[in-house]
């Protein structure tokens, strides 16, 4: 019974599926930490439910990853037995929860991106991805509506809530550039019609969030610097701590089941 990390051949399709799966798992894990700690019970339930949707999406995607890889690994191997450098999530989702405003801002920025992404991926030539997209699209639209309404409430709320929301936006904006990066690996699956070209979707994304920010009286920061690296396994220090927490049980007691 091995506790070591798995190794596998990362084809462009597998790489793409892991990018989506890792985004969903890491953000789902982050959000689950709010359970029992949210500012009010309704929000406690909401964040736990959003986390559940994301972890559900991650499971479908890891299951597909295991089938693509076809060497006997399961969804759990991909979630629990890869190291930081094998994780393909964007840096935005691994950023700490911070205060409630930071969690809401992160959720708006990410959900608006995924809402666009899943809607287009419903037309993917890859049947499995299209099926996962059709489910995830509805959930993501609901997450966007929910977090968008909260951001308006916070931004257009008290001086304190406005200041915190603006501070979170200033901080997290620098992680949004990465969402629209494509590389050579992804180019292969864009050209075969498996995934939309996110590189050309930044404007649509900004149009989606601008009305929310306007109503929230928040300003888009002018951030010339954008962080990057997550898609190729170069993560912030936060991911290691997340994985230590997430993977401990499976590394200590491999193949443990409920």
């Amino acid at each position, binding site marked *: 019974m091995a506790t070591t990390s798995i190794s596998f051949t990362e084809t462009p399709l597998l790489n793409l599926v892991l990018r989506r799966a890792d985004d969903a798992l890491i953000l789902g894990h982050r959000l689950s930490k709010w359970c029992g700690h949210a500012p009010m019970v*309704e929000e406690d339930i909401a964040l736990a439910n959003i986390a559940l949707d994301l972890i559900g999406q991650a499971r479908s995607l890891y299951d597909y990853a295991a089938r693509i890889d076809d060497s006997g690994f399961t969804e759990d191997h991909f979630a629990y037995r890869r190291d930081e450098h094998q994780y393909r999530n964007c840096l935005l989702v691994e950023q700490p929860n911070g205060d409630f405003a930071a969690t809401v801002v992160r959720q708006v920025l990410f959900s608006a991106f995924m809402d666009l992404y899943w809607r287009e991926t419903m037309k993917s030539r890859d049947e499995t991805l299209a099926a996962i997209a*059709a489910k995830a699209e509805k959930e993501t639209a609901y997450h966007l509506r929910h977090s968008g309404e909260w951001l308006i409430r916070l931004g257009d709320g008290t001086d304190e809530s406005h200041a915190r929301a603006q501070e979170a936006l200033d901080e997290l904006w620098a992680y949004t550039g990465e969402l629209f990066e494509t590389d050579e690996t992804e180019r292969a699956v864009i050209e075969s019609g498996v995934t939309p070209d996110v590189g050309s979707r930044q404007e649509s994304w900004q149009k989606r969030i601008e009305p929310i920010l306007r109503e929230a009286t928040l300003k888009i920061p002018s951030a010339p610097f954008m962080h990057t690296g997550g898609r190729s396994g170069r993560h912030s220090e936060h991911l290691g701590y997340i994985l230590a927490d997430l993977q401990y049980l499976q590394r200590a007691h491999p193949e443990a089941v409920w």
Partner: protein
Amino acid sequence: MSTLAELDTEDDLVARARAAIEEVCDPEIPVLTIADLGVLRSVEVTADGEIEVAITPTYSGCPAMDVIGFDIKTALAKTGIDNARVRQVLSPAWTTDWMSEAGKAKLRAYGIAPPAGRASRRALFGEESIACSHCGSHETEKVSEFGSTACKALWRCKICREPFDYFKCI
């Protein structure tokens, strides 16, 4: 080639299996069967003579799926069918439009407001008008977009003052 007699048996088997499976209830909303919910997609006999049941999740992370799978196998075992397989299908994606009218009536009687209208993006981002599941008034307000399970939201009636669950329209 199958003989006519074998085909008859196969049909009988599917009918027997289906009758048993249609009685299986959702563990989180026990007033609805999985057929009412639209979660039960198909019951078939495979080439090797096994019963294969296809179910679809309401939400990607619906924790009830494992229990539903187990309950299906238990229901089949009670009618003497031991060699059943339960498969999850994602496509086409489940929508509240698949809930039967009988199912919606059962939900209302149970105290949960059924999904209002048809599922669409416009419906999601537009104004919602939900009838109170207790008194029927439309003078209601949303308390929380998420409720006790992934598929429900929490509402409150301004007339009878009672809170109620609403089965989200997606």
